[in-house]
């Protein structure tokens, strides 16, 4: 294990965290404007629909929001305590620990290895990106974290507990287009997990779903069935479905791959805005380095089939030049093998 940190600041700790926080507060929900500017180098045009989107007050979410506030207070109290404690105490318990996990598929009588002894930690509230060549096992890893695929070696721990099957605390956006039950309208598709997991009642779920459909630009298609949508629209429904759940952990497998540049950017902003609100933990697969740098706090690079960890980079709080350098670094790594 030849870990060599390539950024000087190691445990920047509480102070850095507070700086970061101020920066974020300044930038408001939209995330760091600098970030947006250099990620989308070609255009800095303000996105129209962000303004519109803030309008609905979403009264049906109030009860939950109150709970959230209480949590936030508790978290703040914890954070105050944290100032005195050594920094690693606060960060010791990762939300997700993937511990030397190998994933195998059985084919006829043999088994085929998708990932080989992959290990990484995802901290609470972290946006963690998986990058790697096609077929290197990113989707398999995501499915394993989602509880759909048992690890044939190693363990997957969620808050220190081994995962025991799928659940709505880890909402997933899959890579395939056929993830929407075809017998539900677009609206019901988004509302259904909310009622199924008993998060909201039917009326509340539909209101909330309608709101999210508007956010992904599909308000006009609420009554349509999935087979009447284009590929990108289907994926947007899946994204709305996942985001509407505001889960503690979100798994997204190339969610924006089928979207045009503009829609993609809007979706990224929606994602980041929701993250600002909810601070969920995000595991995000993409094949766009640019997107990885834009979305991720940390980026894990996997080597080709079978996937093994090649590198893990910090991607938060970089300036434009650092970002460019990191992008090139990652590209180099991906080209290597």
């Amino acid at each position, binding site marked *: 294990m030849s870990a060599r940190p390539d950024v000087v600041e190691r445990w920047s700790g509480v102070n850095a965290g507070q700086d970061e926080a101020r920066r974020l507060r300044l930038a408001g929900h939209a995330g760091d404007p600098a970030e947006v500017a250099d990620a989308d180098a070609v255009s800095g045009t303000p996105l129209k629909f962000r303004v519109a989107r803030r309008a609905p007050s979403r009264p049906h979410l109030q009860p939950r929001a109150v709970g959230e506030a209480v949590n936030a207070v508790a978290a703040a109290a914890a954070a105050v305590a944290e100032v005195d404690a050594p920094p690693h105490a606060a960060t010791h318990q990762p939300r997700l620990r993937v511990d030397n996990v190998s994933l195998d598929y059985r084919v006829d009588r043999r088994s085929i290895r998708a990932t080989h002894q992959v290990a990484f930690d995802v901290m609470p509230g972290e946006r963690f990106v998986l990058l790697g060549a096609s077929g290197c096992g990113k989707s398999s890893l995501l*499915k394993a974290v*989602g*509880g*759909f695929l048992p690890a044939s070696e190693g363990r997957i721990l969620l808050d220190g507990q081994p995962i025991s*099957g*799928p*659940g*709505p605390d*880890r*909402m*997933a956006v*899959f890579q*395939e287009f*056929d*993830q*929407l*039950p*075809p*017998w539900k309208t677009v609206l019901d598709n988004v509302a*259904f*997990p909310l009622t*199924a*997991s008993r998060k909201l009642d039917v009326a509340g779920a539909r209101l909330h779903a309608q709101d999210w459909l508007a956010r992904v630009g599909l308000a006009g298609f609420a009554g349509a*069935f*999935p*087979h*009447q949508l284009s590929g990108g629209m289907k994926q947007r429904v899946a994204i709305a479905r996942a985001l509407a759940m505001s889960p503690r952990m979100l798994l997204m497998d190339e969610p924006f791959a089928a979207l045009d540049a503009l829609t993609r950017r809007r979706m990224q902003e929606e994602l980041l805005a929701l993250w600002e609100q909810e601070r969920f933990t995000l595991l995000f697969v993409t094949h766009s380095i640019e997107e990885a740098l834009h979305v991720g706090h940390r980026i894990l690079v996997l080597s080709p089939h079978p996937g093994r960890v090649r590198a893990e980079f910090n991607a938060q709080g970089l300036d434009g030049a650092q970002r460019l350098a990191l992008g090139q670094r990652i590209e180099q790594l991906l080209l290597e093998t």
Partner: protein
Amino acid sequence: MSLMAPVRRPDRLLDPQPYVPTTAQPVPLWQRLAEASGWRQALLLVLLAGLWEVAARLADNDLLLPPCSAAARALVTDLASGELLMRAGVSLQLLLQGYGLGVVLALGLTALATATRWGRDLLASLTAMFNPLPAIALLPLALLWFGLGARSLVFVLVHAVLWPLALAASAGVSAVPETLRMAGRNYGLTGPRFVAQILLPAALPSILSGLRVAWAFAWRTLIAAELFFGASSGQGGLGWYIFQNRNELMTDHVFAGLALVILIGWLVERLVFSTIERWTVRRWGMQR
């Protein structure tokens, strides 16, 4: 080769064609009519009746195969006298009981089969073993357990409905795409809720075809079984009507009874199964 490189053409920039969505652009009536399958099926029905008439006249054996017109006359007579309707009512009532019970059991068995490996093997063995068993095999059991009468008939009907439907449903359930299963599990659905809210709707095309087959076999079985379980005090259904008329060599009435079976079958197909299909799997794009 290189000369084949495309020639450059000028750019163009247009103001997009205005498009005002004409709110309700209903499909023209004639097109809807042309596509409605009702009249085509009715036409086919008439055509088949014609074929029957011709075949019967060629065979010229009205004791074995009366012409369609004779059967139609008998049908009208007995419908008018109310006898056929009464008998069809008796049969339908039994049929619905047996069918309903069979459907519930079949779906239950399918649910069990999806839940565990043992359940799957159980279903596979049970269907493989019991499905080919003719009704005679069940008569003694039915008699022992239920005696003569409606309950035995329902038992035999359940046997006719259960296996084909369970087979079709479980085949449909096994063919549900993995992604859809994962989506369902992801919602936190497990056990019966998972089956009812994900697997069954996703398997609906198969289930519908199973329901159709089961319906048909329920009819077949009922008409055959009414002979075994008999008619107490003239209360027999359509099967008994057919049997009795056959015994009296009133072949036109026999075929009138069969024609009623055919008509009921066709009506149920048009009014129930087709409609369900149109409102579910077709509408959802799961079937053309």
